[in-house]
C-alpha cells in the first residue's frame, strides 16, 4: 500500500497533512449537501404550515356565512361574462353596420374636449354676453377645428373622409351655450338607434336578468362583511388575551405583572362568537336566493332567445354563437351552485382534506382582499402549463429538426457556425428576453394580428399585447438550446454502423434518419424534451414581464384563440408577490407552497430525464 512508503508528516490533533486536506474537501462536500438538504427543509417547513392556517381561514369563511354569499357572487360574475360577450358582439355589429355613424357620434364627443376646455374663456364671455364674444368664439372655433387631426379625434378610424368633413362643417355652427349636438350628429345617432333597436332590446334584457340576484347579493355582502370584521376582531382579542396570560405567567417582575394584568382586564372577549345568530340572515336567504336564481334563469333564457340571428359582422355572429352555447352551461352551473348554497350550514366542519383540495383545485387566487383571501393554484398552474405547452409545441419541431440537420446533413463548416450560435441563445438573460417581448415582439405580434387578411386565425386580432402566445414564443426560444444540444448528443450516440447499414441497403439519407436514427435515439430525444420542459416551466422573468399577469382561468370558449389571452403563472406569482408580504403570514406560506409545487414538478421532470439518459448510457 502506498501509505507504507509515505513519510510521516507532523501531526496536528492526531491528523497529518493528508488527513487535513481530505478533511477540507470532505467538509465542503458535506456543506454543499447540507445546503441542498436545507433547501428542501426550508421549503417544506414553510409550505406545510400553510395548511392549518388555510383550514382556519376557510372555517371562518364558512362560519361567517361568507361562503353562502360567495355562491351568489360567483353566479353574478358568471352572468356578467355573458353580458360582456353580448356587449362585445353588440359593438362589433354596431361598428360593422353603423361604423360611420358611431364614428360621427364619438368624434363629436371627442371634439368637444378641445373646444370646451381650451375655449373656456370664450364660452364665459359668451355667457356674460360680452361685446364681440360671438366673433371671438367663431374665430377660435374655426381655428381649433382647422387644427385638429382626424387621427387624434377618430382614434379607431371609423370615419371616412366625407363624414369627417361633414362633421367638421356641422360643428362650425355649434352653439357652446346650448351644447346640443348639431343635426348631422343627431341624425347619425337616430339612425344608429333605429338600426340596432331589436339587438339593443335583447341586450338590455340579458343584462338586466340578474337584477334580483344582484340586489340580494349586494345586501348579503354588506351583512357578511360586518360579521367577518367582528369575528376577526374577536379572534384578535382572544389571541391577545392568551398572549397576555402567557406574559403574566412568565414574568417575575411585579410591576410588569400588574401592568399586564391591567391590560388583560381591558381585553373583552365573548365566550364564543355567536356565529349562529350572526349568520341567520344568510341562512334565511336561501329561499330568496332560489327565487332570484329562477328569475335570472327565466329572464336570461328569454333574453338570449331574443338576440338576433343574423349579423352583418362575422365576429359578432361568432360571439353570439358562443353566448348561445355558453348560456345552458351557465344555467346548469347556476343550478348546481344554488343547490350547493342550499347545503351551506355555518356549523358544518371544514374537512382538512377539503381545505387542501381547495388550494390545489381552487379557481381563484385573490389576496389582500377585504372580503376573503382565496388561494387557488389552478389558474396559475393552468397558465404555467399552457405557456409551456405552447413553447414546447413550437420549440420541439425546430430544435429536433435543427439537431438532425446539424448532425446528419450539414457540412463541417455549417456545424461550426450553427452550434455556437444556438448555444449563444442560452446566454441571453431571461429579463432581456422579457423586455424584448414587451417592446418588440408584443408590438410586432399585435400589428401582425391586425392584418385584415389574417383575421380568420382564432384569437386575431389580439386585444392584449402581453399574452400567452407572446410568452410561449419567447420561452420556445429559451428551450431551443437545451433541446437542441441534448438531441444532438442523442443522435451522436447512435452507432455509426446503424446508419452505414441502412445506407448500404440503399436507403436515402432521409429514410435513414427517419427509419433508423430517430427510433434509436428516440428516448434521448424524449429526455431532451423533458429537460426543455423543466427549463420552460421554471422560467420566471419572461412570464412575469410578458404573460400579462392576469389571474384567471383561461376562457376555453375561445378555442385556440385562448393563446391571445393574458394569464399568470406559478413562477410569476412568487416573483411578483414575495416582496410585498410579511413573513409568517398565510399569504407568505401560500407562496412557499407554490414554490414547493414547482420544486416537486421540476424534480420529477429531472429525475425522469436523468433516468432515461442513464439507461441510454448503459446501452
Amino acid at each position, binding site marked *: 500500500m*502506498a501509505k507504507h512508503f509515505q513519510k510521516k508528516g507532523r501531526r496536528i490533533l492526531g491528523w497529518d497533512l*493528508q488527513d487535513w486536506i481530505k478533511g477540507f474537501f470532505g467538509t*465542503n462536500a458535506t456543506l454543499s449537501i447540507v445546503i441542498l438538504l436545507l433547501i428542501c427543509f426550508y421549503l417544506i417547513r414553510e409550505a406545510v404550515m400553510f395548511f392549518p392556517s388555510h383550514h382556519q381561514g376557510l372555517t371562518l369563511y364558512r362560519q361567517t356565512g361568507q361562503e353562502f354569499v360567495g355562491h351568489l357572487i360567483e353566479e353574478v360574475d358568471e352572468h356578467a361574462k355573458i353580458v360582456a360577450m353580448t356587449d362585445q358582439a353588440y359593438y362589433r355589429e354596431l361598428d360593422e353596420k353603423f361604423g360611420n355613424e358611431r364614428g360621427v357620434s364619438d368624434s363629436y364627443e371627442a371634439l368637444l374636449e378641445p373646444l370646451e376646455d381650451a375655449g373656456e374663456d370664450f364660452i364665459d364671455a359668451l355667457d356674460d354676453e360680452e361685446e364681440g364674444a360671438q366673433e371671438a368664439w367663431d374665430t377660435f372655433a374655426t381655428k381649433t377645428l382647422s387644427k385638429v387631426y382626424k387621427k387624434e379625434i377618430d382614434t379607431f378610424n371609423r370615419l371616412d373622409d366625407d363624414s369627417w368633413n361633414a362633421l367638421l362643417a356641422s360643428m362650425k355652427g355649434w352653439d357652446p351655450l346650448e351644447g346640443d349636438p348639431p343635426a348631422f350628429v343627431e341624425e347619425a345617432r337616430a339612425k344608429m338607434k333605429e338600426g340596432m333597436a331589436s339587438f339593443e332590446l335583447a341586450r338590455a334584457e340579458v343584462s338586466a336578468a340578474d337584477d334580483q340576484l344582484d340586489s340580494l347579493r349586494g345586501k348579503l355582502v354588506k351583512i357578511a362583511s360586518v360579521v367577518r370584521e367582528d369575528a376577526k376582531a374577536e379572534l384578535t382579542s382572544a389571541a391577545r388575551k392568551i398572549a397576555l396570560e402567557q406574559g403574566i405567567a412568565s414574568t417575575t417582575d411585579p410591576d410588569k405583572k400588574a401592568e399586564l394584568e391591567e391590560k388583560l382586564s381591558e381585553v373583552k372577549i365573548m365566550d364564543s362568537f355567536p356565529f349562529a345568530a350572526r349568520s341567520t340572515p344568510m341562512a334565511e336567504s336561501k329561499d330568496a336566493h332560489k327565487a332570484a336564481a329562477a328569475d335570472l334563469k327565466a329572464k336570461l333564457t328569454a333574453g338570449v332567445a331574443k338576440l338576433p340571428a343574423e349579423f352583418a359582422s362575422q365576429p359578432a355572429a361568432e360571439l353570439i354563437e358562443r353566448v348561445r352555447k355558453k348560456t345552458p352551461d351557465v344555467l346548469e352551473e347556476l343550478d348546481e351552485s344554488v343547490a350547493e348554497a342550499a347545503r351551506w350550514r355555518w356549523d358544518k366542519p371544514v374537512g382538512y382534506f377539503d381545505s387542501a383540495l381547495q388550494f390545489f383545485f381552487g379557481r381563484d387566487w385573490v389576496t389582500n382582499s377585504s372580503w376573503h383571501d382565496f388561494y387557488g393554484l389552478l389558474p396559475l398552474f393552468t397558465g404555467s402549463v399552457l405557456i409551456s405547452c405552447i413553447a414546447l409545441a413550437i420549440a420541439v419541431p425546430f430544435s429536433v429538426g435543427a439537431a438532425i440537420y446539424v448532425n446528419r446533413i450539414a457540412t463541417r463548416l455549417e456545424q461550426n457556425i450553427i452550434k455556437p450560435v444556438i448555444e449563444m441563445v442560452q446566454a441571453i438573460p431571461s429579463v432581456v428576453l422579457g423586455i424584448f417581448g414587451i417592446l418588440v415582439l408584443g408590438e410586432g405580434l399585435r400589428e401582425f394580428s391586425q392584418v385584415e387578411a389574417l383575421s380568420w386565425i382564432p384569437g386575431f386580432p389580439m386585444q392584449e399585447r402581453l399574452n400567452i402566445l407572446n410568452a410561449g414564443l419567447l420561452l420556445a426560444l429559451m428551450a431551443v438550446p437545451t433541446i437542441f444540444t441534448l438531441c444532438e448528443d442523442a443522435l451522436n450516440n447512435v452507432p455509426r454502423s446503424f446508419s452505414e447499414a441502412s445506407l448500404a441497403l440503399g436507403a436515402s439519407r432521409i429514410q435513414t434518419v427517419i427509419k433508423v436514427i430517430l427510433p434509436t435515439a428516440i428516448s434521448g430525444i424524449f429526455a431532451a424534451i423533458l429537460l426543455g420542459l423543466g427549463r420552460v416551466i421554471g422560467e420566471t422573468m419572461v412570464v412575469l414581464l410578458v404573460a400579462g399577469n392576469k389571474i384567471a382561468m383561461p376562457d376555453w370558449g375561445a378555442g385556440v384563440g385562448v393563446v391571445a389571452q393574458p394569464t399568470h403563472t406559478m413562477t410569476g406569482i412568487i416573483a411578483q408577490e414575495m416582496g410585498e408580504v410579511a413573513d409568517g403570514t398565510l399569504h407568505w406560506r401560500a407562496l412557499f407552497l407554490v414554490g414547493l409545487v*414547482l420544486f416537486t414538478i421540476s424534480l420529477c421532470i429531472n429525475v425522469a430525464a436523468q433516468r432515461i439518459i442513464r439507461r441510454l448510457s448503459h446501452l
Partner: protein
Amino acid sequence: MNPFVAKTKTRKRKDQASVVIFAVATYLLVACAVGIFFKIASAGAPILFASEDSFINWDFLTKNPETLVVFEIEEGEKIRMDQTDFTEWKKENPGVEVLNEKTHAYTGGGILGPLVGTAMLVVTCMVVALVVGVSASVYLNEYARKGLLMNAIRLAIMNLAGVPSVVFGLFGFALFCLSDWWPALTYTINEERTMGYFAIPLTDGYLSFQGWGSGSSLFAGGLTLAVMVLPVIIAACEESLKAVPKGFREASLALGASKWQCIRTAVLPYATPGILTASILGVTRVAGETAPIMFTAAVADKAKLPWEEAEGNGLFWLSDVMMQSVQALPYHIYTFARLPNTEETAATQNGTVFVFLMLVSVFAGLSIFLRIFFRNKLKW
C-alpha cells in the same frame, strides 16, 4: 426503358425536399437568434458608442441611475436632463419658463451602480461557489468510496441543477435574509434576537449571532446565487475530473506521491480547462439571473456605490459593504420594464439592455471558445 428510373427520381426529389425542410428549420432558428442580437445591438449601440472622440459614451458607464427630466423651453424643442443637473440648471436660470416638464424614473444618468452591483454579486457568488463546488467534487470523485450513498448524492445534486431559479430565491430569502442566527459584525447588539446574548465583543463592535437583518444584502444575494449555481459547478467539475484518465493517478501514486500530491500534480492540472469552462458558464448564468436576487439583494434605487457608504475598518468595512443591498443590471432592467415605456425612456433602456447582453455574451462566447479550444488541444 428502365422502369426504376422514375422512382429513383422521386426518391431523390423527396430526399432533397426533406433536406430543405430541415435546413429551413435550422436556419430559421439561427435567423431568430441573430435577429434578436442584432435588434438589441442596433437599438442599444448608438447609446453606448459615440461618433466623436473617445468613441464610447463614458457618461453612460460612469454615472449612477437617476430620474430623467424632459422639458421644453420653447415649444417643440425637447431637452433631456438628469434630475440633479436639472435642479442646478434651474437655480442658474431662474427666469426661464419651463414647459411640459415630465419626469421618468430610473432612466436618467448612467448604469454604474447596477454594473458594479452585478460585478460584486458575481464575484461573491463565484468565490463561494468555486471553493465549495470544486472541493466538494474533488472529494466526491477522488476521496469518497464509491457506493450507493455517493451515487444517491450525485444524483440528488444533478437533479437540483434543474430547480427553477425563483425557488432558490425563495429559499435564499428564508435562509439568509430572515434567519436570526447568522453571525454578523455589528456595532450594537440586537437583544431581541434570541442569540443576541452570545455576542462576542471585538475592538470595534461585536460578533453577534443575530442574523443579517431581514432586508436584502449583497452577501445574502451572492450566497443565494452560489447555492443556485453550486449543483451546476459540482456536476461540471466531476465531469472534468472523471475525464482525466485513471492511468495518470496510478502513475503518480506508483512514483510514491501522496494522495494530495497526486491530485495536485496529476489530476487538477488536467481538469482545470474543464473547470474553467464550467465556471465561466456559471458566471454567465449567475450574471443573467434576476429571480434569485429580487428579494435577497437587489434594490431599484440607491444613490451611492456600496463602498461609499461603508464605515469602519478592516473586517467591519468589508461587513458594511457586504451587508448593503445593491443595484443589479438585471433588476434594473426589470424595474424599468414594468414602467410605461415612452420615446424618452427608450434610449436608456435599450442602452442598458445592450450593455448587459454584451457582457453576458462575452462570457458565454468565451466559454464556448475555450471548450472548443481545449477539446482540440487536450487529447490523451
